[in-house]
């Protein structure tokens, strides 16, 4: 299976009403997976999943149409700081944070929506959850 990478598209007020994603899909003849979308009349923010080997082509296509493209920040859990309280669990809309049998917190980086969601970050009493830039440090630190 192809590795997928997530990119964050930002649409300004000027272009927010145009069907840009559809155009890029037709142009590149490539399926693009929308993970989250937050759009109103003033601006739009869309989290997109694209095949890694096509990343540059996709980014170029969007930039050509005036879209700001960036790599979304990832959510990182500092296991040293985590006190396994569970405050974050119910805030996650995609069940990326779960409790094990012995009541430890498990964070599934693959499921996590990243900084576009961040619902758990300000709920952590131990401040063990942070959003970090992609490519910085090792973000794959697993709780176990």
């Amino acid at each position, binding site marked *: 299976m192809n590795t997928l990478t997530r990119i964050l598209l930002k649409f300004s007020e000027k272009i927010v009403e145009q069907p840009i994603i559809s155009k890029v899909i037709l142009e590149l003849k490539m399926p693009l997976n929308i993970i989250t979308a937050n759009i109103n009349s003033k601006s739009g923010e869309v989290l997109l999943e694209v095949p890694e080997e096509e990343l540059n082509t996709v980014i170029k296509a969007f930039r050509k149409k005036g879209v700001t493209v960036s790599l979304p920040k990832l959510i990182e859990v500092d296991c040293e700081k985590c006190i396994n309280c569970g405050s974050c669990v119910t805030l996650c809309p995609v069940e990326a944070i779960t409790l094990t049998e012995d009541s430890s917190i498990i964070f599934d980086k693959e499921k996590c929506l990243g900084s576009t969601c961040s619902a758990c970050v300000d709920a952590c009493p*131990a401040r063990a959850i942070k959003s970090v830039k992609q490519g910085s440090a090792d973000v794959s630190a697993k709780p176990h």
Partner: protein
Amino acid sequence: MEEEALNSHNKTRTIEEINQKIRKGDAQVLAAEEMKRLVESSGVEVAFKEVDVVTTGTFGAMCSSGAIINLGHSDPPIKIDNAWINGVPICHPGAAVDLYIGATAMSAAQPYEYGGGHVIEDLVNGKEVELKAQAYGTDCYPRTQLNTRLTKNDLNQFYLLNFRNCYQHYNCAVNSRDETIYTYMGKLLPRMKNATYSGAGELNPLMNDPDYETIGIGTRIFLGGGQGYVIGEGTQHEACSQNGTLMVRGDAKKMNTEFLRGATFTRYGTTLYIGLGIPIPILNEGLVKKTAIRDEEIFTNVVDYGVPRRDRPKLAKVNYKELKSGSVTVGERKIRVSSLSSLKTARKVASTLKDWIDRGEFFLSAPVERLPLDSKFKPMKQTEATSFVANVMQAAVTCTENEDVSAIAKRIVTKSVNHIVVVDEQGKLSGIVTSWDLTRALAEGKTGLTDIVSRRVFTAKPDEPLETASKRMAQHKISALPVIDNSRKVLGIVTSEDISKLMGK
């Protein structure tokens, strides 16, 4: 030999007998969850014969905590008037150099992020902290300014001194409002999309001795990874409603940060997470039954923290088994629930205490005095009346969906108001139109109500304190809130004008 014979016939044993067994290394100690399984499988009689001590534990945010420290005297000496450690204001409750670090005091430079709880954690961790102090200066204590750096080893005394810990059980919190709220029960999503709870349920020390038969003044306990004592009932203690609490003390120099952590609740403040465990001596079969209590027998209320009142609505009754399962049912709805306290660390507290007793490092103590069983937690006596939305709200001027802009404009003029509340046939809120919206309609040539109505309406409830309604208006830069009931039926309107009039009185 004599002693053993006594035990096999009698239906009781004493704390001294248990301590002798601990000394010899043959006391039988079970952690609370193991005890429950044993009683379930083998019955009360067998459990009484086989078990001497049951260890319990809890690990959660306990805001009414703090540490008393003694700094020793500086030269020239100072009688501290104001003090800060790492920027956190510290109380000066006594004479010259005794300070109390309250867990919820916050740093002015990093409010909500760093506070007394973190200072205590840093000290326990062996870190150096920065002390600043001011004084007015006296003949005997001439110094007026002090700056120094300290670790726990530089302190004469460093004792955790917590006036309310170890709540027997606590509420499960939800939020009925349309907005996310940040509380001491954590982040609560709008329209009851999540629930939080606190407490270890069947592992909680007080739940395993609900009649305070063995827990009293002088009971030796596990506190923050070290040993401590119960020094009395906690403030707000109410044993008869299963709302018992403890006042405790322990040597913080011997604690460790696995069981003591500074913490932060966004927009609420800082606090301290503490691990607290109590060994329950199994003195009789009654205590076997009590320590056999299960999560499904421990009930608590689902409480609506969206209502900013002392007596918040109780929406449902749930037990700790449901809470620990991850979802609770309120009416027809299933709501995801998670804890704020750590069950994992609560178990670790109970098992660590068990290890200490097994290794002969911890002995039980009989209470020198019982804790009160009949005390009541009274509400505050208030001598000043508080204003609520119901006190100032007025009848709302309303319109229906199918009216046109000119009719609404007329009503604004004749009734001399700025807000028209849009309602449906049942009188339920469906939008709001302001005089500003009408001006815009005129400027843009719009004639239909649907073109100008605001659908996202901020509202108030009649029993809400005026202060919170006022805050909501300021936060969203609006000047009125329709007042609605739980079914969104419009009861009236409260405006910033009416509030200012009241305040001006």
